[in-house]
């Protein structure tokens, strides 16, 4: 036991990423795979029901653009809301925000790898109905970032898994049900999450994607600022 073992933390080490991936557990792969496979199932049902190739293509996009944000948002909030070792984590010299960031990063990485593979397969088989390869990431990344960041934000502010998951569910469902309202309201259109599936890659698509990315990043910044006071994450049971 040598005291010189303790050194200022410099590089983020690979073993820590591995441990954080294990903390996230099965959710890590279940979140993207559930979304993508349900999307495929819906597309198969639509194809079986006599839908056109274009409609089936749109349905396949629903996996990454519509379902992935929901599953990722729910997984993200579950990771943030519950941590059996939170008090111990807060006493360690590694900032808890960094640990949470790493944990959520593994979720983002798993989601990105699965979705990129999925997009590549659809592209190779000619079933990809979204924009070209360079812009294809923008089909799923902005809505996923936005909803997951919102989920984490509400989870931190409300310190309630129930409130956070309900907000995610309501925003997701509300955007699906009130798509026409979003399309009609000029100011709301940039914040509509499912533009590719509902309206296609039209003139407003880029504006929408950029607005979602910018506002999603803004929420991430707010989350990072809130995590500067990580003790606020201790729930009533823990305090």
């Amino acid at each position: 036991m040598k005291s010189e073992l303790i050194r200022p933390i410099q590089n983020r080490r690979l073993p820590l990423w591995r441990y954080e991936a294990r903390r996230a557990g099965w959710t890590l792969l279940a979140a993207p795979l559930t979304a993508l496979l349900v999307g495929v199932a819906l597309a198969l049902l639509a194809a079986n029901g006599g839908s056109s190739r274009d409609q089936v293509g749109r349905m396949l996009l629903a996996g990454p653009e519509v379902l992935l944000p929901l599953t990722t948002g729910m997984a993200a909030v579950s990771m943030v809301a519950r941590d059996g070792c939170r008090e111990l984590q807060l006493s360690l010299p590694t900032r808890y925000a960094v640990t949470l960031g790493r944990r959520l990063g593994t979720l983002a990485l798993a989601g990105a790898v699965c979705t990129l593979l999925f997009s590549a397969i659809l592209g190779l088989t000619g079933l990809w109905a979204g924009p070209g390869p360079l812009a294809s990431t923008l089909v799923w990344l902005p809505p996923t970032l936005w909803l997951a960041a919102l989920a984490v934000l509400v989870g931190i502010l409300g310190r309630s898994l129930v409130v956070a998951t309900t907000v995610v569910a309501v925003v997701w469902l509300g955007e699906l049900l009130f798509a026409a309202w979003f399309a009609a309201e000029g100011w709301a259109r940039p914040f509509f999450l499912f533009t590719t599936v509902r309206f296609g890659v039209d003139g407003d698509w880029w504006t929408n994607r950029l607005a979602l990315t910018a506002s999603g990043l803004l929420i991430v910044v707010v989350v990072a600022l809130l995590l500067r006071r990580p003790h606020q994450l201790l729930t009533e049971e823990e305090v």
Partner: protein
Amino acid sequence: MDIQISRLARRFGKVTALHSVDLSIPGGMYGLLGANGAGKTTLMRILAGVLPPGSGQVRVGGHDLTTGAGRLAVQRRLGYLPQDLGLYPDLTPREFLDYVGLLKGLDDTRARRAQVDELLDLVALGEVAGRRMKGFSGGMRRRVGIAQALLGDPTLIVVDEPTAGLDPEERVRFRTLLAGLAGHRTVLLSTHIVEDVAQTCQHTAVMAAGRVVYTGTVADLVRVGEGATWEVVTGVGGPPPAGVVVSAVSRTDGTHYRVVSPTRPGADAVPAAPSLEEGYVALMRRAAAPVPSGSTGR
């Protein structure tokens, strides 16, 4: 690593957990006694950098805990065992300690792993080091907890109710281990089990309702019970009507009660030499009584 606390207060909404606490803790083993809800855990959390102080000053080894930099500096030298340590059940003790070691900044893989194995042997968990912690007993979990607290050879060890839920043998083992560590470190032991402090600490503080009501040696705390500890033997009937019954032992000649009371609890009560527990009870009764003006309560 000495600890200097002055006028420390902490509120949670409408509840005041700490009222202007002043405390000076030198190196070595130091006990913090108090009933549940006395504010011990809040104080421990502040010292561990988990909670920021509400107001007042807290300096640990010269570092100011009211600043982020100060908290980080202390956390680099800290070993902390929280009262409710939830472990990650899907990890083995070896993996859990390795993980905590990484978060403590122990970058040298070989040295870290060697230290992990050494600590697991120290807490007698070497044989189950590769088993997932899911089915671990309360005692085994506490031992994992103390092992992680010792990672990185900390100079300040803060343990909150470490022996709660342990069997007698494990408690003794644990206390001996902690006392052995206190040689060149500060070990702060927070507990409501008086016996743990009696067996390991020379100095102690007592908290009640968010205030420090006593600081001094354990021997002086025992003396608080002098003149207030009585033994009463009753053949039939219940305990004496006055005072706090600390123990009751049934023997052939009747039930022997040990009672803490400022006045003689019965005509047949005889004065007795107090134990630490009785000194503590006498102190708590005194702390609960209205404080005369001018008294500091310490």
